[in-house]
């Protein structure tokens, strides 16, 4: 563990990152009004009196948004507050029609929890501080209005869940892995569509650096990271920049920064000196949000199996290593694919290897989801069944898989057509073995002199001569018999 941590240092500095993620909740209507939330409509067509903050309008909580917050809380093992408070965050901005944003401040609905994921083969757990409900603002449109700005309030009042971590993340790799894991959770449980281009899943990263063991450094917040690629680039740039500043003897000023993908750099939007006093206070238009234990229980009973629960089940039921189980539960579709194939052929570990290996490799190359894989779970299961019953070898299976992927067809027919059946006929195999032994007297001699590794030099040519059809176990057995006999 110590060695691992040391390897994360950048020029002798430890990187400290905390995340704030805004997940747009997948409700049909807004968080405090009945206007629809659909993306991409004509400006100001999806805003009602409440969203426009017309005099006399009042907010009414959308229960669907609360349910989604409860689901997230359950998914990350958090405490669901029996009573949480909506507060007003007061500031003036043209796309904020009320002059305040309704959010949760002192008492959020989701408290604590954690998110675990693998970075390479290292398991990492990030603690969550909270997740709170709030409304989105509208959009200011600065193009197309000469000398003026346009305001589109369609997005005003869209429900958001802001998910905040402890500063537990130690590298840009971990940051991306965390963000991907959180993205997986929210899309898996269906509370957010996860569309980063449309802004449904936006991350802010609080980044600071320090010498190991020192107090936390001053942080700068990188706003609105809307792709995993930019996230990595932005954090890497920011970390280098901060270290450079410190090495040059400059103190870091707390600031909010934006990442510019064109230059690959972050630049400050505002510093702490400009920080507004938001005059938070409990919103008197909204009574405390009460979430009874029966409500939590009902949401839980209606929830889909969580990725971490499913991963634990894969370990318990299929004897998979934790790494496999976590990898296979990266998406619901992949997990379903694995489970269907594993059930059909009864060879869970083999299926896992194939799904994480060949299937994923080809899907990644084509950037398609597993639900669109040309080789379905039942076909993969049929093929693995033929490996398990010794009809084909692993290397022959690769040829079968390739044929299935590119041309499709029936597993057995492909084996037949390509003549890939293993030679389970010992007579024919013995002939090949005799020939190979005769052609490699040196290896034979070395083996007999006690070098057991020399055996490998014989197995390879035998497999080759059989065109991959020989059963490796049978080859070993017959070969040893010949050499020792």
């Amino acid at each position, binding site marked *: 563990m110590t060695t691992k941590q040391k390897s994360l240092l950048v020029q002798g500095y430890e990187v400290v990152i905390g995340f704030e993620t805004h997940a747009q909740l997948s409700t049909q209507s807004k968080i405090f009004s009945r206007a629809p939330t659909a993306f991409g409509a004509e400006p100001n067509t999806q805003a009602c009196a409440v969203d426009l903050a017309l005099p006399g309008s009042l907010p009414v909580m959308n229960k669907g948004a609360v349910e989604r917050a409860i689901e997230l809380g359950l998914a990350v093992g958090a405490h669901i507050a029996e009573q949480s408070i909506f507060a007003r965050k007061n500031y003036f901005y043209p796309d904020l029609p009320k002059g305040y944003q309704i959010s949760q401040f002192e008492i959020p609905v989701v408290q604590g929890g954690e998110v675990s994921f693998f970075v390479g083969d290292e398991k990492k757990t990030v603690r969550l501080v909270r997740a709170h409900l709030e409304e989105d603002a509208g959009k200011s449109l600065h193009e197309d209005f000469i000398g003026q700005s346009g305001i589109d309030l369609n997005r005003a009042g869209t429900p958001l869940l802001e998910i905040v971590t402890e500063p537990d993340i130690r590298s840009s790799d971990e940051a991306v892995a965390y963000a991907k894991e959180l993205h997986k959770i929210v899309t898996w449980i269906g509370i957010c569509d996860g569309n980063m281009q449309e802004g449904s899943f936006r991350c802010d990263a609080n980044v600071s650096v320090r010498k190991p063991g020192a107090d936390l450094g001053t942080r700068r917040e990188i706003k609105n990271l809307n792709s995993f690629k930019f996230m990595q680039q932005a954090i890497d740039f920011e970390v280098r920049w901060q270290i450079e500043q410190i090495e040059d003897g400059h103190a870091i000023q707390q600031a909010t920064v934006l990442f510019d993908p064109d230059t690959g750099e972050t630049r400050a939007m505002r510093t702490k000196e400009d920080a507004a006093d938001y005059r938070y*206070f409990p919103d008197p238009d909204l009574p405390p949000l009460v979430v009874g234990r029966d409500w939590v229980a009902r949401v839980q009973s209606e929830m889909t199996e969580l990725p971490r629960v499913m991963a634990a089940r894969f370990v318990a039921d299929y004897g998979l290593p934790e790494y496999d189980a976590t990898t296979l539960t990266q998406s619901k579709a992949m997990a379903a694919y694995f489970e269907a194939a594993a059930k059909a052929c009864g060879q869970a570990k083999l299926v896992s290897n194939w799904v994480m290996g060949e299937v994923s490799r080809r899907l990644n190359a084509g950037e398609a989801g597993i639900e669109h894989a040309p080789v379905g779970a039942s076909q993969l299961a049929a093929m693995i069944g033929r490996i398990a019953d010794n009809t084909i070898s692993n290397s022959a299976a690769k040829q079968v898989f390739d044929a299935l992927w590119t041309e499709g067809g029936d597993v057995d027919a492909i084996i037949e057509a390509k003549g890939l059946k293993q030679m389970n006929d010992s007579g024919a195999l013995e002939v090949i073995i005799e020939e190979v032994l005769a052609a490699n007297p040196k290896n034979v001699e070395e083996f007999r002199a006690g070098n057991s590794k020399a055996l490998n030099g014989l197995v390879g040519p035998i497999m080759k001569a059989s065109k991959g059809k020989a059963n490796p176990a049978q080859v070993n057995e017959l070969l040893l018999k010949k050499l020792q006999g």
Partner: protein
Amino acid sequence: MTALHDMTVAALANELRTKKISATEAAQHFLARSQADTSGAFLSFNPEATLAQAKEADDQLAAGTAGALAGVPMAHKDIFVTTDFPTTAGSKMLEGYRSPFDATVVRKLGVQTGGAGMVNVGKLNCDEFAMGSSNENSAYNAVSNPWDTSRVPGGSSGGSSAAVAARLVPAATGTDTGGSIRQPASFCGITGIKPTYGRASRYGMIAYASSLDQAGPMARTAEDCALMLSAMCGPDLDRDSTSLDVPAENFARDLNASLDGLRIGIPKEFFGEGLAVGVRTAVDAALKEYEKLGAKLVPISLPRTELSIPVYYIIAPAEASSNLSRFDGVKFGHRTKDYTDLVSMYKRSRAEGFGEEVKRRIMTGAYVLSHGYYDAYYLQAQKIRRMISDDFQQAFKVCDVIAGPVAPTVAWKLGEKADDPVANYLADIFTLPASLAGLPGMSVPAGFGEEGMPVGLQLIGNYFKEAQLLNAAHRLQQATDFHLRQPGGAQ
């Protein structure tokens, strides 16, 4: 036959139901009276809309589908948004503003399906955004008290109280945040009730202080208030999260119940120094009347009465400072003609659109919510607010209703306190406690004090005890005739 404008809501409803008069005739009569008014009580008329509503009421009366108060004219405080009339909240900020929707209270009282069928004669003047107790903070014009036109009608529902007292309309709506129904009712010698907080929907009532604002009726008699309040209340859960899930009631059901054995709590803090002699005399006489009716007077204490002033003047401005942020010149309301950038647009629009008292409360509110001051002011005020509520619950262990003066004095002269906001604030001392506790309270005419000006008796009930308050008020009105007296200016 009694003149239409001398009739109560109950009497008019009966005339209309029995087709002795039509809604159109009633509307024309009250419209003409109101339009001829010179007190400044009205801010806007729309005779076409009023007569269209009357026509609708007549149709409903003919079809037998009419609501309980079909065709009875009334007027709304200009704090309720209406589609048929402009809504200004007494502010330049909203000059000419037209709401695309009606407030729930407007719908419930109006001629829409399911409504009580009342016809809106116009919109009534009030202190800007309901902030004030003399109606002098209206951005449009002051209102004179019909009992003495050199005096204020009270506030913030001063247009409502003046119009009802002058018999321009038989009834009006008001809103009460810290006494804005009870105090003007007292100053103008009419009856008004603020129900339990959450009884009447706040949807469409332009917010001043959300945790305190409540709508209520203002009329000449307790019976009329009961009839209107029955129509105004009821759950509105889809539009107002602070609306209580308590069914509407017929608040007139117990009007004539006996008061025998009723325990009336007399808070000693309401009868101390600063209470005008004439007010005290009238209130004492009303209490004597109650004893004659079989009630028992019980001495009680509401020890934090004085604290209710600082508590209210922290909480209400805090909420107001945030509620009024939406008036920024961007989407609606006044926008300055003279600006160079966003910040100057905000600053000038708000500087021009808001009056002095509104600005004062916004500044106070922003201050008490600021970082570093929040705990000392806002949080502390909330704690004391809870204690004030607890004090009432202690009191209701030994009494059924609480009685005392509505205000320490009778209506003062126009301009008398205009430059002294603190003097105005101090005059709210007796109405603020019930507001902070969310309790129902009302003002009942109890006689006349200094300079022959009306004095109101305040009755405060426990939560949801509106029917009991109205019963007590009605019985007093059966035994006295103060509510029937007419100001000289109302001929």
